[in-house]
């Protein structure tokens, strides 16, 4: 049987091209003046500027983490931290490479969204397309704005919650984000409100969600319910080599919030994200996280279960191809009694890619009857690829029930032969096995995302055998 090579190199395959004169205009490197300029341009309250400047001091002092992936390729002085609106330069649809257009075609991405994804349009005007859905949300009192706009309109939410779940000093990248953040979403779901449709589905493609240092703040008030979906499965070309988002979620008493992300970055991107939820009494937080593409992703969605009976869940898929390292996992901090958590992590490594599961489960002393289940499964598609597992458990109360399972498997010759004997070619058989492997997580996705993710994995495998 032939060797399988799954081409996941976006540079080659999708061939996006960086405008050479683009980077000349934007200023490289970071200093106080840039931070002041960001804050002034956004007309922010004085406390936010102060917050940014303090965060910048922390950023300068903190070292890169010495664990996780290799961060040596990041040159902080070569990065543009802020683009003035006038700097934005767009390419024309004709300049978009044929492979990219073909990928959009095969994924069935609508034309308006294609133009945005390919950088032809700066903004996907969702308000026109989805206006009736927006008014439905408005009637329920749901606030859903870009974080910049929300800070102007609802400063009290920010004074109360911003930077409280993830302080600037949490890690080097949260400090960086806190000093230069721009864009991201703000969501407020009022008490008892159930949002029927997944929130982001209306705004599937939205400029504010594609920023380099986006900042998202979500408050799910008592007894509310919402499913928020971020990102999309089509490959996103980014001219920025460093993406460092911060997502803070507050799940109030009895609320239930699900945050779904599917990211598929181009191959040169460092994607270093801090995501954390504080979950109060009887609240439920679910992170569903899919990571494809990028050079290095470091992302460990967390739940701080601070109220009794609070529950946290992380379902994650990582797909590491050539020259890629997916260092992903989860953190569950059980700070109250009768809290429970589940972590299910599935990773696929192929064509020399590396995927690592890195997890922390911590049970505070005195937190009684905590239940934890951790399951991490790795699938390795060839001999060149690597999978690692770093589970950490700090259990400080003997009443806790902990289950941990980890499996590593290779795609077996027998399984491939079995499926091929039924008429599937090698790539089809392979992608069927892979989509079966991630099915437990894919079935949790909204239908269109599930379909797209499966199709994307098929595309990755197709035509790259032998």
């Amino acid at each position, binding site marked *: *049987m032939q060797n399988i090579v799954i081409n996941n190199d976006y540079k080659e395959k999708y061939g996006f091209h960086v405008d050479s004169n683009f980077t000349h205009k934007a200023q490289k490197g970071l200093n106080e003046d840039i931070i002041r300029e960001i804050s002034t341009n956004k007309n922010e309250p004085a406390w936010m500027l102060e917050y940014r400047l303090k965060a910048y001091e922390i950023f300068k002092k903190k070292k890169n983490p010495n664990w996780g992936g290799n961060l040596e390729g990041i040159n902080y002085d070569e990065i543009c931290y802020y683009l003035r609106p006038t700097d934005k330069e767009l390419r024309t649809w004709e300049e978009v490479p044929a492979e990219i257009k073909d990928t959009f075609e095969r994924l069935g991405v609508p034309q308006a969204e294609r133009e945005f994804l390919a950088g032809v349009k700066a903004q996907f005007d969702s308000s026109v397309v989805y206006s009736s859905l927006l008014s439905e949300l408005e009637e329920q009192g749901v606030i859903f704005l870009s974080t910049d706009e929300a800070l102007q309109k609802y400063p009290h939410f920010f004074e109360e919650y911003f930077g409280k779940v993830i302080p600037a000093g949490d890690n080097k990248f949260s400090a960086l984000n806190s000093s230069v953040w721009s864009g991201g979403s703000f969501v407020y779901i009022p008490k008892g409100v159930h949002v029927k449709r997944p929130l982001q589905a209306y705004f599937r493609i939205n400029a504010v969600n594609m920023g380099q240092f986006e900042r998202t703040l979500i408050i799910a008030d008592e007894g509310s319910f919402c499913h928020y979906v971020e990102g999309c499965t089509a490959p996103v070309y980014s001219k920025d080599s460093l993406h460092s988002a911060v997502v803070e979620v507050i799940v109030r008493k009895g609320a239930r919030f699900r945050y779904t992300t599917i990211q598929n970055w181009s191959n040169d991107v460092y994607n270093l994200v801090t995501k954390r939820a504080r979950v109060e009494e009887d609240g439920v937080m679910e992170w569903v996280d899919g990571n494809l593409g990028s050079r290095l992703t470091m992302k460990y969605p967390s739940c701080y279960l601070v109220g009794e009976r609070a529950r946290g869940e992380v379902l994650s898929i990582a797909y590491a191809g050539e020259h890629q390292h997916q260092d992903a996992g989860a953190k569950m901090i059980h700070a109250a009694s009768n809290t429970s958590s589940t972590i299910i992590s599935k990773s696929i490594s192929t064509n020399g890619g590396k995927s690592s599961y890195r997890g922390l489960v911590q049970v505070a002393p005195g937190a009684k009857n905590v239940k934890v289940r951790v399951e991490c499964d790795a699938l390795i598609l060839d001999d060149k690829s690597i999978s690692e597992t770093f589970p950490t458990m700090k259990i400080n109360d003997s009443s806790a029930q902990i289950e941990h399972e980890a499996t590593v498997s290779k795609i*077996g*010759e*027998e*399984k491939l*032969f*079995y*499926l*091929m*004997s*039924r*008429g*599937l*070619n*090698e790539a*089809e*058989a392979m992608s*069927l*096995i892979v*989509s*079966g*492997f*991630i*099915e*437990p997580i894919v079935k949790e996705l909204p239908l269109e995302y599930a379909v797209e993710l499966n199709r994307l994995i098929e595309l990755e495998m197709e035509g790259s055998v032998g």
Partner: protein
Amino acid sequence: MLEIKNLKVNIGDKEILKGLNLEIGQNQIHAIMGPNGSGKSTLAQTLMGHPGYEVTAGEVSFLNENILEMEPNERAAKGLFLSFQYPSEVEGVNIISYLRMIYNHSHNEKLSPIKFRELLKEKMTILDIKDEFLNRYLNDGFSGGEKKRMEMLQMLVLEPKLAILDETDSGLDVDALKVVSQAVNYLAEKNGMSAIVITHYTRILKYIKPEFVHILKDGKIIKQGGEALAHEVEVSGYAPYMN
């Protein structure tokens, strides 16, 4: 339709098939019987193209074409089917969409999910398979008997020209045995399918009547005959054929 001449097959350094000859005609049922370790499963796996079995000599032509260089899926496309002795469990793969996928491949069609379900219903009746069965993942956690039914369902979906049943009878109770046999007889009647029934025991041959019986021993066919040969084996076992 199938001609095997002087077939020699190695697993690693060990020669398992040592010059096997066999001819199968259109719409014929053949039984290949033999003691454990005689090379029965090796023959089945080699015919389907398992990469772990190395053909060192001989020829295999199927419908007048040499198939030894073909990938398993190309052999399937020509109308060859193998019912596995130990079918693989493929977690997370939904049975209906899988079956529709292999149907569309083999029939060069694009049946809609609804149309395909109708078509499947009839086939499920033959095998006495309940609807709930379809909500599971492919062979995932199936009992031995369930796996064999699933093999037969796939055979009915693919409608091959020649089916090789590798100990499909092992571990089945009488009811399951009847059901499995019905599937083979159905395609033999409807499409003129040929079959090679590989078995250790004569039990299944009460339900699938072979016209030709071959005794395989130590990598070679050592005796051929009609249905009566199977009865001989039933009465005397393989002992008379052992040295």
